[in-house]
């Protein structure tokens, strides 16, 4: 019997969960992220194995079906936190965007600060091939160490950021002068009155001023231009808890993986204006993953497999619609007869900025229960399903 407080995975889980409770009170459905965190990926419970490298949000919580049935470890949930953003920093807007004020990419490693920690669980009921109930709990870490922007992007970003700053200064100047002119500085309530007046002036001006909103829209579009190249490195470990009992646990699967992404806009890349308008991309992803897995069919005897996955994904994205195909070859270093492939096609349609319709079809690893057929809606900022039905 293993005490929970001696188990690092459980300690980590409790730590993150305590954070979830304190932050989670203000969460809205639209803030819920989808489970593309390493902790969830290691459990192989996702329509895509090859995720897009990216930036974790400050704090996100994901729910496939967050149902804690009163005892044991919560089932079917995922959450991710980027610790850097929980503490004050000295970044300016330029450093935050990874560029300098002259319009050059400052360094290609700046996105590494967005490294994230994640935790997730998937509960599976007993089935014929796996005759026991189990909750799979995973913890993970992800870092985006390299991000290379297209050469025209930093310059266009700086130009637009400076234009926004100048526009803000003009609004600031006018509002400040207006309020200072009409208020008496010797009044005891001068500061309060000035602040109210200034907020009102600025708010009204911003609502009317479409030149600022046009610049903001332009900046959003520039920042949405996909980087030429980026790379993610992630690692995760997971445990099986039979019957969701903390005491009855066993190592399930651990792994490290690297994903590289290369994006090619389907337009001329020497013209920044065309790139801003462009919504169509060909993206190529490469993936290498090493996994150590303890497989079982009865939870009494376990067989260790050392697995090396190599593969990639091609994706065509046409504005709201994308179609992709991913293939992974799994080399079983313990028993080469068990080498296998995963080949999955993915179709996705963006209904709104935060709502996706996604379908994923194909063959998963292994020779049994290997049909991937997912279809569902995804409400969040990522691109994996929140509500899904799986047939296997």
């Amino acid at each position, binding site marked *: 019997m293993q005490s929970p407080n001696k188990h690092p995975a459980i300690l980590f889980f409790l730590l993150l969960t305590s954070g979830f409770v304190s932050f989670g009170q203000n969460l809205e459905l639209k*803030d819920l992220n989808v489970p593309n965190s390493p902790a969830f990926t290691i459990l192989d419970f996702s329509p895509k194995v090859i995720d897009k490298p990216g930036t974790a*949000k*400050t*704090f*996100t919580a994901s729910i496939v079906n967050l149902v804690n049935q009163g005892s044991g470890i919560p089932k079917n949930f995922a959450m991710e936190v980027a610790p850097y*953003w*929980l503490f*004050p*920093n*000295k*970044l*300016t*807007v*330029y*450093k*935050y*965007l990874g560029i300098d*004020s002259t319009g050059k990419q400052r360094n290609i490693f700046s996105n590494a600060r967005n490294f994230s920690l994640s935790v997730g669980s998937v509960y599976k009921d007993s089935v014929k091939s796996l005759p026991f109930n189990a909750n799979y709990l995973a913890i993970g870490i992800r870092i985006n160490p390299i991000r290379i922007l297209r050469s025209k992007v930093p310059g266009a970003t700086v130009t637009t*950021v*400076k*234009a*926004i*700053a*100048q526009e*803000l*200064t003009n*609004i*600031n*100047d006018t*509002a*400040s*002068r207006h309020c*200072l*002119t009409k*208020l008496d*500085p*010797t009044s005891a309530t*001068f*500061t*309060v009155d*000035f*602040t109210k007046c*200034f*907020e009102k002036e*600025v*708010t009204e001006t*911003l609502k009317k001023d479409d030149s600022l909103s046009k610049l*903001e829209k332009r*900046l*959003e579009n520039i*920042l949405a231009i996909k980087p030429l190249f980026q790379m993610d490195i992630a690692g995760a470990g997971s445990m099986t808890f039979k019957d969701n009992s903390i005491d009855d646990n066993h190592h399930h699967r651990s792994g490290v993986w690297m994903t590289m992404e290369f994006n090619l806009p389907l337009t001329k890349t020497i013209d920044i204006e065309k790139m801003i308008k462009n919504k169509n991309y060909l993206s190529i992803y490469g993936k290498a993953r090493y996994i150590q897995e303890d497989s079982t069919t009865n939870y009494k005897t376990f067989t260790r497999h050392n697995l090396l996955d190599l593969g990639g994904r091609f994706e065509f994205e046409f504005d709201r619609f994308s179609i992709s195909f991913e293939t992974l070859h799994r080399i079983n270093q313990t028993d080469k007869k068990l080498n296998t492939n995963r080949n999955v096609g993915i179709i996705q349609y963006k209904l709104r900025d935060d709502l996706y319709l996604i379908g994923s079809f194909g063959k998963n690893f292994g020779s049994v229960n290997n049909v991937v057929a997912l279809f569902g809606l995804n409400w969040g*900022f990522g691109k994996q399903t929140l509500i899904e039905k799986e047939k296997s």
Partner: protein
Amino acid sequence: MASRVYFVKKGQGVITLEVKPTTIGIASSVAKLKKSGGSVTDVGDSGNDATGKIQSVPVGKSADLLQSVLVITTIIDLTAVPKNQWNQVFEQLRVNYHLEGGIDGPQDFNVDNDDKSQILDGKMIIAVKAIKFELHAIPQ
């Protein structure tokens, strides 16, 4: 949200101001002086410097500043920041107001919690700091 006080003496020494916001948003700062007579003068602004910094600028001669109020306003635009980080950026906002030339020499003021507010659903942050110039009461 009460005004802060910076003590000056009756003299010709020049008071200077420097403003340094720390934020990942696009910032703009403007400093103006409201004189006791009612006139408003420009002290400085950050122009198109998106960090919102105002480099050291003269506010005026000590003797001319008595009973005047220096008001520094900062607007921060969070367009480049994901919406779910807006509240955190608001919480973490720091602005340093550095004054020199007064009785106490260099003195730093910082933005207080009640100096800042969010507008447009949190997409914009406003920070206001008012600093009064008063004659230093020298104990006899």
